[in-house]
């Protein structure tokens, strides 16, 4: 492994002061960062271990649930507050990575994991995310796994977090801390589109740290589930995925969030599918016609056009399974 220095700061202000120096990076679980170092995609001069600054606690807060940024994926997936109130989050987490990685990776780090785009992780090729201004090799290259939403000729890399897609369906907020204080950013606004600066992936300021993720009570009043489609049964990123968070009243949908993964340069909500089910009973006809709208606005490239029908099928299947679940336990 390329050499770097290691520091374990005593508090947030020390961490921040170190993090804004050139070549410094935070490390939490390390499961993505150390891969990137091994493959020479990222070469930190110093890593700042924030594990002792990022609390792992999961607790109720203002009616909702607050997840400390240091919570491990397995711990979140197993926690009763997450499993019972936000099953979509637990399911997305259990479908992520491997058991070993889920014991290491943290809530905060998961949101900051870098793309699996082949070219981002291959230092022999141009990539605007890895080397700004060098060009996008995926645009006309092997783009089977790349995005059909939110891309541009500068970058069509998918943001790969399943957890983030589930959080989007739950209207989660990300709590960011710096010596100046705390701020909250809705999940929907946390990741940036790659249009102008693909290398800048979130709205975080230099040195800022994720300290918690907050899930609102309102989302706990909805029923939710996660469906993930991938190239093998386990330990694989999503080709497509669908997070549903739906409230039913009197047999009809009264509120809906439909978010999808594997297809966007950031976690993506489907603005045309949600209104197509609100106010409706989830009949086969409603489900089919709503799902047909899932890929509206998609901009596929040569090798990922299959994601258009696959996404329609993924959303349709997720809605069908949700409707069946409702029929069993109304």
């Amino acid at each position, binding site marked *: 492994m390329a050499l*770097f220095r290691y520091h374990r700061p005593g508090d947030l202000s020390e961490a921040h002061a170190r993090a804004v120096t050139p070549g410094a990076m935070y490390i939490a679980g390390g499961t993505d960062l150390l891969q990137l170092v091994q*493959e020479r995609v990222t070469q930190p001069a110093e890593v700042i271990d924030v594990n002792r600054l990022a609390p792992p606690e999961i607790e109720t807060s203002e009616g909702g649930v607050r997840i400390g940024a240091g919570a491990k994926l397995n711990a979140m997936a197993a926690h009763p507050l997450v499993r019972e109130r936000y099953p979509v989050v637990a399911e997305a987490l259990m479908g992520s990575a491997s*058991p*070993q990685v889920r014991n*290491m990776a943290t809530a905060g780090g998961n949101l900051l994991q870098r793309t699996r785009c082949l070219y981002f992780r291959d230092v022999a090729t141009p990539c605007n995310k890895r080397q700004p201004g060098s060009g996008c090799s995926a645009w006309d290259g092997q783009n089977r796994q790349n995005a059909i939403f939110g891309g541009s000729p500068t970058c069509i890399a998918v943001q790969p977090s399943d957890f983030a897609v589930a959080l989007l369906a739950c209207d989660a907020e990300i709590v960011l801390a710096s010596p100046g204080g705390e701020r909250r950013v809705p999940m929907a606004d946390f990741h940036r589109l790659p249009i102008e600066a693909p290398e800048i992936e979130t709205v975080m300021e230099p040195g800022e740290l994720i300290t918690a993720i907050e899930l609102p009570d309102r989302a706990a009043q909805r029923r939710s589930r996660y469906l993930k489609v991938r190239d093998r049964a386990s*330990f694989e990123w999503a080709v497509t995925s669908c997070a549903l968070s739906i409230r039913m009243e009197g047999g009809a949908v009264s509120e809906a969030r439909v978010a999808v993964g594997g297809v966007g340069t950031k976690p993506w909500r489907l603005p045309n599918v949600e209104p197509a089910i609100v106010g409706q009973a989830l009949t086969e006809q409603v489900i089919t016609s709503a799902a047909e709208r899932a890929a509206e606005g998609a901009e596929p490239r040569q090798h990922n056009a299959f994601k258009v029908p696959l996404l329609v099928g993924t959303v349709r299947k997720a809605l069908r399974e949700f409707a069946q679940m409702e029929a069993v336990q109304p």
Partner: protein
Amino acid sequence: MPEDGRALEIELRVNGQSRRLGVEGSTTLLDALRDRLHLTGTKKGCDLGQCGACTVLLDGQRVVSCLTLAAQADGRDVITIEGIAPEGQLHPVQAAFIEHDAFQCGYCTPGQIMSAVALIQEGRATSDEEIREHMSGNLCRCGAYTNIVAAVRDAAAKMA
């Protein structure tokens, strides 16, 4: 731990014994175990967290030691394949792997066994389907999966 962050003194509790050692800031737990403590049972496969050959227990939980910095394990409890059974004895999972011929070349086997030991502790060995899902972090390029599942199922039953 000195201030420069490059050369670090750490203390690991490895297989029940306290070990002090000097490492670089960028030394992985895997390299510290193999190259500094000469515990070569833990294998280096992909070095990218994808194959599971380097699986160890850190504070009782299975992790891939190739993506763990030695410095992050400072002061913590590490169990490797060398430490799962008393000297001269086999752990029930090791015995089951032999009985079921659950390997061919054997390179992935220490990681498979560490993962299986953790999986049984986690209570995840209730069906073949669940064993497969929760062993998914361990690859076997010889393709001994069928016998690995049988060994884990058998060991779990004997340990119950």
